[in-house]
């Protein structure tokens, strides 16, 4: 009988902490914070910090290819190359229709839009960039990855604001379970560090002034970041048959909505997402060792998420290791869940809980073990990763040791 467990056979990442999945994990483990002063076009903004990518994202791309690519697609391609290389997978023509690609994005390719506005409104330019439409579209990352690797099965983008990557990962999980594909390249990406978008977040008043301090009593908000993550998901016996190294099992996925407030997280919707995720993977609450929290660092999210975790896990909540790696890689919106998947898989394989950095003082409303400032050694069999988005959309995934 076909073993439809889902293997993770490759990981890639470009984040504020590092240019690769390995660099990012090394940084997260060491508590390295990639959030710093914004260096590009920060005039007339209240926000002064963000998670910028610490390197040249265009390096290695032929100049001819770049006009067609907005930064959110470039970093997704870089992450996909890493993941496909680690998976050791070449998509042969006779197998191409059994491979899919699903990439989550919270925004879209906004750089070319902003440049167009500036050119036309400020400088009297006559036309927008020819590539504005193909660069902007939210499916651009998935489409470009499919073209680079010759992927011809289900290829599409998904969007759910800050939960986009987890929805994409969950959709890949379901596609393999349903027999639609044997391999699905999944992940998420966003590049929101652009003046126009930052101006919008300024207006929303949820951004941290000096640092992102999830779960800390003095937390003042989130830090936006650019970032992308990609994973290669594979039907278990397919991965086995070709001798691939299985990094971990993608053991479950849950998706729900609050249908309530636009930006205030609820208790019911996220709790059901976690429960559904655990059920889908036949995971008991007591099996979970590590929760990679949504942990944005806003007042409301972190205290609400604490209540959600306590509601779902009951007495086991005090035995859980919890952390917010967003304190280091920032909130890459549609990219966050995929960067956090990189953290979860490595946490399991190395028995290391990455820390929540910038943590100053305990908040009685966030009374879980949030792994303050320094990583912790701990045997981890199952990790879950929470994403609770504006719009009340929730997606949770579970990863189990292979």
């Amino acid at each position, binding site marked *: 009988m076909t073993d439809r467990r889902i293997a993770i056979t490759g990981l890639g990442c470009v984040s504020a902490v590092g240019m690769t999945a390995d660099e990012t994990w090394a940084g997260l483990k060491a508590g390295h914070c990639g959030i710093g002063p914004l260096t590009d076009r920060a005039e007339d903004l209240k926000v002064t910090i963000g998670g910028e990518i610490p390197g040249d994202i265009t390096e290695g791309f032929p100049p*001819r290819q770049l006009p*067609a690519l907005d930064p959110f697609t470039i970093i997704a391609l870089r992450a996909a190359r890493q993941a496909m290389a680690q998976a050791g997978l070449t998509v042969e023509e006779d197998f191409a229709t059994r491979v899919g690609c699903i990439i989550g994005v919270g925004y879209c390719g906004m750089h070319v839009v902003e440049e167009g506005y500036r050119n036309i409104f400020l400088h009297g330019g006559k036309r927008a960039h*020819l*590539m504005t439409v193909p660069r902007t579209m939210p499916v651009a990352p998935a489409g470009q990855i499919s073209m680079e690797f010759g992927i011809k099965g289900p290829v599409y983008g998904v969007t759910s604001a800050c939960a986009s990557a987890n929805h994409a990962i969950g959709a890949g999980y379901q596609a393999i379970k349903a027999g639609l594909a044997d391999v699905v390249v999944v992940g998420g990406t966003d590049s929101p560090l652009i003046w126009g978008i930052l101006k919008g977040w300024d207006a929303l008043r949820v951004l941290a002034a000096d640092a992102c301090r999830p779960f800390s009593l003095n937390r003042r908000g989130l830090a936006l970041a650019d970032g992308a993550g990609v994973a290669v998901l594979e039907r278990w016996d397919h991965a086995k048959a070709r001798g691939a190294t299985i990094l971990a099992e993608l053991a479950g996925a849950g998706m729900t909505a609050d249908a309530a407030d636009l930006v205030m997280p609820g208790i019911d919707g996220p709790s059901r997402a976690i429960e559904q995720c655990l059920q889908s993977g036949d995971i008991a609450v007591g099996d979970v060792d590590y929760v990679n929290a949504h942990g944005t660092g806003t007042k409301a999210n972190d205290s609400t998420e604490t209540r959600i975790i306590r509601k779902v896990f009951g007495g086991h909540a005090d035995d859980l290791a919890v952390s917010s790696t967003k304190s280091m890689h920032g909130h890459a919106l549609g990219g966050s869940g995929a960067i956090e998947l990189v953290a979860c898989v490595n946490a399991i394989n190395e028995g290391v809980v990455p820390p929540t950095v910038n943590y100053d003082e305990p908040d009685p409303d966030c009374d879980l073990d949030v792994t303050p400032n320094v990583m912790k050694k701990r045997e981890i069999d199952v990790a879950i990763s929470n994403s609770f988005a504006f719009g009340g959309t929730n997606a949770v995934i579970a990863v189990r040791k292979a």
Partner: protein
Amino acid sequence: MSRNLERLIASEIAAKFEIDAETITKQTNLEEIGVNSLELVELVIAIEDEYDISIDIDTTTAASSLKTVGDLVALGESLGLDKEAE
């Protein structure tokens, strides 16, 4: 003056595709040197910018009528670019 238009197109192609401009003639087949549908429109935009005109084409079908450098030159000529340049 269509020679000027031809050399303009050749220099645009040369810069973008890293090909020696001297090797590009009216007979050069655009698809054979790897010009895709959107890059073809970029060449049309270069002509628009150079001569400050507007050229009405359909991106989705342009490649079926504009196959060579000569076709682009003929398109320019049909819009009277020769006369204007003289």
